[in-house]
Each structure stands twice: as C-alpha cells, then as structure tokens.
C-alpha cells in the first residue's frame, strides 16, 4: 500500500483515519518488528492525548470555578490565560523537590509512580472510536477494575511514607472511601454486563448501536440504566476523590491529605494521576451507559466516532467541574452512611431490576414496572436515611432568621 492509496481510503472513510494510518505505518516495518510497533503506536496516543486533556482540564476547571464564584480565573499567561498549564508544568518541573528527613525515601519516591502507571494502563481497554481500542480483552471490564484497585495502595504508600499525621489521616480516609465506593461502582457496572452478556468493553459499545425511533439505543435510556448511570457517576466521583467526596484531600482540615509532603514534579504526578483516573472512569461510564463512541442522533452519524467519545468526555469533565463548584464537602460519617446505607442497597435493587427487565416482554409495562420499583426504592431509602440520621433543614442558633 502506498501513500496515495492510504489517502484515498481515508477520504472514503474519515472515521478510520487513525486506524488506517496505524496499519499503514506498521506495514512499513519488517515482519518481526511489527507487533512491537503496533503496540507502541497504540500506547503513544494514549500517553499524549490524555495528559494533554489533563492540561486542558486544569485551565478549564480553574476558569469555570472562577466564573462560578464570580471571579475571572487565570487570565495572565497567553491570550485569556490558555497557556497557564504550560506555566504550571514548567513551575512543577523546576521546583525544588523536598523530601522530609523522616520519610521512607524509597516508598516516598515510588508512590507517585505507582499512582500514575495503573491509571494509564486502564486506558488500554477503553474504546475511543470504532476499531480504536488498544487491546480488546475478553475480560476488559474486570481488567479496568483490577488495575484501578492498585490506586489505593499508592495512596497508602504516599500517606504512610511521608511520616506526617495529616498524610496518614488523608490516606486512611482515602482508602476507606475508595473501598466503600468501589463496591457500588462495580455493582452498578454489573447491570450492563448482565444486559450485554460479556465483560468486553467493545461488545458493550456494539450492544448499544442503533436507534429506537430517534432515541439512541443507549442503556442510560432504560430505567435500570439510568439509575445505574447515576449510581456509577456518584461512585466514580468518590473513587476519583472529587468534590463533594474530596475529604481525603480536605484542604481546609488536613491541608492536602496524602500528598502534603510532596512538592514539585511528584506533586504534579499526583494531580496527573487523579485527573487521568477521572477521565478513565468517565470513559468507562461512557462505554457502559452512554453508547461509547456512537452518535446520539441518527443524522449525526457522519461525524467521526472518536469525536463523539471526546465530546462525551468533555461533557463529563464540565459536569464534574460544575459539581465541584456547587457542592460542599461531605463529612466522614455522612460519606460512609451514604455509601453503605443508600448506594449499596440501591445498586443491589438495581441489579434485581435489570434482571426483571431482561425477562419481561418489551413494551410500556416493562418500563413502568422497572421505573416504579426503582423510584419506590429510591424514595424509601432516601427517606430512611433522612429519618435515621435525624437530618432536617439546619437551624442556625445564632443567626438572625
């Protein structure tokens, strides 16, 4: 295949531009080197695109939060401040790397590395476009969660090795929170596995192809899918330590939690890991509930599939920024109560509902039954949580009104 043919086939199918280019480049290499080149060409885009997205998100987040709080946000570096991430990166690189004298040097050094590597690995199973997945594993979803599990360990390493009470407190909070919210996260993803009958992420996207009238055939438009999506989103927010579940960081009480004692580039690595984790789990939510790279409306199919993935991902990022600008931080007991007394029962009920959905005849009845069960469970659980905790609109003893 020469370059002309390549351009021709790309023009025929612009959706596959990256896939065709990769095949073309790999074809130029000798037979023995081809698998290695293929792997490298799959990894390189992941390593460049998502950290780039991280840079974009930091500036978006700071600007958006600023506007929500009626501030300007960063606007000095470059036009409208868009070069701020570059400045931040340079600052992080040239800053002094302070390691506490009492710290466990080796573990302290390894923690930021351990936090970033698994997160990057988890991108391997995310289908970002048609035929665009680094490895199509048979147990892709399991791989994602298995790799994600090591984040907790990295957090512990960071918190423990710093020999700082705030770090250790932050690490303990983070681990407690991650373990508690990992259960609803996995359980809410299981509904999709039940519907698809596979753990492979590509088959999940394939199962959501097509349209029901003008409505896309996504799982979020089913009762259990909608509930599962919201539960997954909440658990994902907690898993990636985002506000309102950011008590492991808790700037106002334990300074920055487990990375108090980190500075310079290691600190930047923690942030990179956190944001990459957020993108990965958002990507998984897109794959599970929002139809992956499928277009939302039939007449928009001409836009390349990978565009849709990133458009959806940007929507998630905006949503997370919006949530962060809106909600205050939860207290530790509220956090645990919410996970174990509200989310866990609801995810279990959701699994049952997904089973009912599977065995009822398609039609309005199925819709009504499933939606009614979920709504009743939601209201009862929420009311129960409220009643049990004696929660009521707060009265301020010393306030005027």
């Amino acid at each position: 295949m020469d370059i002309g043919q390549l351009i021709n086939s790309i023009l025929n199918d612009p959706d596959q531009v990256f896939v065709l280019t990769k095949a073309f480049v790999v074809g130029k290499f000798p037979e023995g080197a081809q698998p290695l080149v293929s792997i490298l060409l799959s990894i390189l885009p992941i390593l460049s695109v998502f950290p780039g997205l991280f840079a974009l998100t930091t500036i978006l987040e700071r600007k958006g939060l600023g506007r929500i709080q009626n501030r300007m946000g960063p606007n000095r570096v470059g036009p409208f401040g868009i070069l701020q991430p570059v400045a931040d990166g340079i600052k992080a690189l040239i800053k002094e790397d302070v390691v506490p004298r009492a710290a466990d040097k080796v573990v302290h050094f390894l923690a930021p590395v351990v936090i970033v590597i698994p997160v990057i690995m988890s991108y391997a199973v995310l289908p970002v476009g048609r035929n665009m997945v680094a490895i199509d594993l048979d147990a892709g979803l399991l791989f994602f969660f298995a790799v994600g599990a090591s984040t907790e360990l990295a957090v512990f390493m960071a918190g423990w090795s710093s020999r700082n009470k705030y770090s250790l407190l932050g690490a303990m909070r983070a681990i407690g929170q991650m373990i508690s919210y990992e259960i609803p996260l996995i359980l809410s993803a299981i509904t999709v596995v039940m519907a698809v009958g596979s753990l492979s992420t590509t088959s999940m996207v394939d199962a959501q192809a097509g349209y029901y009238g003008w409505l896309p055939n996504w799982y979020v438009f089913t009762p259990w899918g909608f509930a599962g999506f919201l539960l997954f989103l909440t658990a994902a927010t907690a898993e990636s330590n985002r506000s309102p579940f950011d008590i492991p960081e808790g700037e106002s009480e334990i300074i920055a939690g487990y990375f108090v004692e980190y500075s310079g580039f290691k600190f930047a690595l923690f942030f990179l890991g956190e944001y990459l984790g957020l993108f990965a789990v958002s990507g998984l939510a897109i794959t599970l509930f929002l139809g992956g790279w499928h277009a939302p409306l039939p007449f928009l199919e001409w836009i390349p599939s990978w565009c849709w993935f990133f458009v959806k991902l940007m929507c998630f990022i905006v949503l997370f920024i919006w949530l962060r600008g809106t909600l205050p931080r939860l207290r530790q007991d509220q956090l645990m109560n919410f996970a174990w007394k509200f989310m866990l029962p609801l995810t279990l009920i959701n699994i049952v509902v997904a089973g009912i959905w599977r065995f009822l005849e398609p039609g309005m009845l199925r819709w009504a039954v499933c939606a009614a069960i979920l709504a009743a469970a939601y209201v009862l659980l929420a009311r129960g949580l409220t009643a049990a905790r004696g929660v009521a609109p707060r009265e301020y003893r010393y306030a005027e009104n």
Partner: protein
Amino acid sequence: MLGEGILKGMVETARNFAGSYVSKDRLTTVEYPEERIAPKENARQFPFLVFDGNDPMAGLRCVACQICEKECPPKCIYIEKSKDKKPDFVGKMQFYPATFDIDVSVCMSCQICVEVCPFDAIKMDQEYELSNDDRFGGLLLNKTRLAKSNEYYGKMHPQEAGAIDESRLKTKEAAEAKVKADAEAKVKAAAEAKAKEAQPPTAPPNKGA
C-alpha cells in the same frame, strides 16, 4: 432529601457562571496590579511613626519612652534612646529615638503599640505592598522608612487625626499660655523682687507691727 437540593444548587452556580460573563458588577475581584480597591478606613497593616512639620527626623513625635517596645507581643520593636534631649512641640526637653526599628516580618498588626502610645506618635499604616527580595533587611524598617508625615495620617483617618491635632493644639496653647503666664509671673516676681530690693532691707514696711 431526594436530591432536589443538589439540582437547586447547580442551577444557582450555573446562574453565577453565566452572569459573570453578562454583568461586570458581579465580578467581585479586580485585576490587581492595574486596578486597586482603595483600602477601607479601618484597614491596618503595620505601624509607622508620625512626624510634624517638614523634617521627618526633627519632627518625630516619638519621645523614646519605650512603652510600645515593652508592650509589643511579638517583640518586633527595637528602640534606642538618645543621649541628649531636644525640645518637643510644646518646647519641653525630651529624649528622642536614636534608633527605632520595626521588623514587619514579625509584627502581627495587633495595634497594641498604637493603643499604648501616650504621644500619638505611632499609628497603623495601610501600605500593604511590602514584599521584598531582601529576606532580612527589606522587612526591617528603620526610623527613616517608618517616619511619615501627619498630613499622610490625616489623609488616612481624617477624623481621628483632626481630633488629635486639636487636642495637641490645645495642649500647645495651654502650654504656651502657661509659659506666658509663667513668664509674666516671673516678670512680676522679678519686678516685685526688684521692688523689694529697691526698698532698703533695713527698713521693712511693717516691721514694727
């Protein structure tokens, strides 16, 4: 408790977000180095020394009584008394500070020095752009850097400064009147003494009585 509060909050923040682009007066912050918000009258940063007249060193109100040095909680004031004395605004002979240093990196802006000063010589400044690349020397303010005119103080706190000026004027007038009276009395006494002297001591007027 069904999550409607979250939605309400999100609508509110969205309104703020959009509003900050539409109306300028929503933005509570200003672009600092180019724009500044004038400090409020009660704003206080670090102390300074008030002087009267045109010569900062000659007009300092401070008499080196060292009360502020003793009262300062973080001990950021250092005063050395002068060996000689010079007249103050009422003409009384007073010491003056040979050295008066304030380490503003230690100062906690508590204003106790101002409260205890009996001479209205030390007041709180509103100057806040003190950052400096000289870590030690740059934040140790000496007498020359601390001295600021009474007019400057008057501009910051017109009412207080006016009251102080008035009372000082009264004191001064009283003192002058006293000096005058003293002088008159002295003159009188001197005249009397002269008169006494003029009369022969051997013949007092009512010696016989």
